[in-house]
């Protein structure tokens, strides 16, 4: 074990992708994608369904097979043991134990991460469901259990795959506020969504389509370049120009 341990520092990009491609079965899910995710910021990964958002997040989390090109997290290969304690990953499917209660799920993941629960259940609005079996929760509530698990132990890098899908607008707004707070506290967040409107809540944007990176820019730059404040329309204009 003489290899250097990953260190969290603002001097290195949190994620760096150079010419990254991923093939999933017959499908080329990502095609020669290159970008850097700056540390300590809230980056939105936006694109329509099937554009490769989940594949990219899985690759960064270190669970996607057949990743070509050079993809690093803090300069290290994704999935390394030393990196995993920094990482909070929320997959698109809930990935929680249905036959345990909300609290039992959180306790288990807290134990294996060596983390405290703190006020996490309040933060994701699940206080009243604490002792309910996950099986009996609605889809949106399950997603929040999954989110709470990803937030355990204040990870430095949060990879959240469509965390706000199917939630009521009020709660969605509160979660985006929470994500902003976490970035303010120094965490790096990469959050995917197929709802273009959510671009407004992000500091940086990665726009994906058909496995290709259309653009990396800020929401203001997107508005300026496309001369529209309608995010859906802005995306369309970007595609037409490309």
């Amino acid at each position: 074990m003489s290899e250097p341990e990953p260190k969290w520092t603002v001097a290195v990009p949190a994620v760096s992708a150079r010419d990254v491609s991923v093939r999933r079965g017959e499908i080329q899910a990502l095609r020669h994608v290159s970008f850097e995710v700056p540390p300590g910021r809230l980056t939105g990964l936006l694109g329509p369904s099937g554009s490769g958002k989940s594949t990219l997040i899985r690759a960064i989390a270190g669970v996607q097979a057949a990743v070509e090109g050079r993809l690093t997290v803090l300069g290290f290969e994704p999935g390394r043991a030393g990196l995993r304690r920094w990482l909070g990953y929320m997959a698109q499917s809930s990935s929680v134990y249905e036959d345990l209660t909300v609290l039992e799920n959180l306790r288990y993941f807290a134990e294996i991460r060596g983390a405290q629960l703190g006020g996490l259940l309040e933060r994701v609005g699940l206080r009243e469901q604490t002792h309910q079996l996950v099986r009996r929760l609605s889809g949106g509530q399950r997603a929040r259990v999954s989110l709470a698990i990803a937030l355990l132990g204040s990870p430095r890098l949060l990879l959240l795959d469509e965390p706000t899908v199917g939630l009521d607008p009020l709660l969605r707004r509160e979660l985006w506020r929470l994500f902003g707070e976490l970035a303010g506290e120094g965490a790096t967040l990469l959050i995917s969504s197929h709802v273009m409107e959510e671009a407004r809540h992000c500091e940086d944007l990665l726009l994906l389509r058909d496995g290709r990176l259309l653009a990396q820019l800020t929401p203001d730059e997107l508005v300026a370049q496309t001369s529209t404040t309608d995010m859906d329309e802005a995306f369309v204009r970007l595609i037409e120009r490309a």
Partner: protein
Amino acid sequence: MKGSVTRSFATARRVLRQLRHDPRTVGLMIIVPCVLETLLRLIYTHRRQAFDQAGAPLLAIFPLMSVFLVTSIALLRERISGTLERLLTTPLGRHELLAGYAIAFGLLATAQAVIVSALTLGPLGLRVRGPSELVVVLAIAVALLGMGLGLLASAFARSEFQVVQFLPATVLPQLLLCGLLVARQRMPAALYGISDALPMSYAVDGMHHLTSKVSADGAILGDIAIVLAFAVGSLVLGAATVKRRTS
């Protein structure tokens, strides 16, 4: 090291909690073997010798079936629901995850073996000559084997329907060949050779050694060691199917 132990025991507690929310499964795992041993005793009301011959091997077969089923379904669910993938992005190592499962299912198998053998050796009057604790030790070894085989089955199944079909596919041939129906020495040479390569043959041999008239503690320990070796082998193979990166 300390973290590793903590994470393994946390996993064992989580698996046991899942079982606690499913008392019917746990109840069936204990009641069904008790009913079957009782039935066997009634079938052989006038043939005590035959009950000793058939009742003892069954004590080694129950943990194999029970633990195979709970392991294969539990791990299949972990694979399908995405919890396995999530666990592999945390500091929990694969070997810690499997150690946690082994602790939980080992305890479950111990509870089953203690209760079922207490009934079978007590009220039902199965006669064992060897130390009766070895019945429990052998049952735990068989349970770990069941876990390894269940882990393997979970990797080759896409649904719970498929995974339960692996039970007859992997366990029934072993039951036919292990000496339960026909003594292994009296089988055709080729089949005898095959049965020598199957772990259940040693589990059943061990139980036969326990009930045989001559005391044969050494032989029993040898059988237990062989079953454990198979269990470790199947667990190592099974662990290789738990992959961090999937397509």
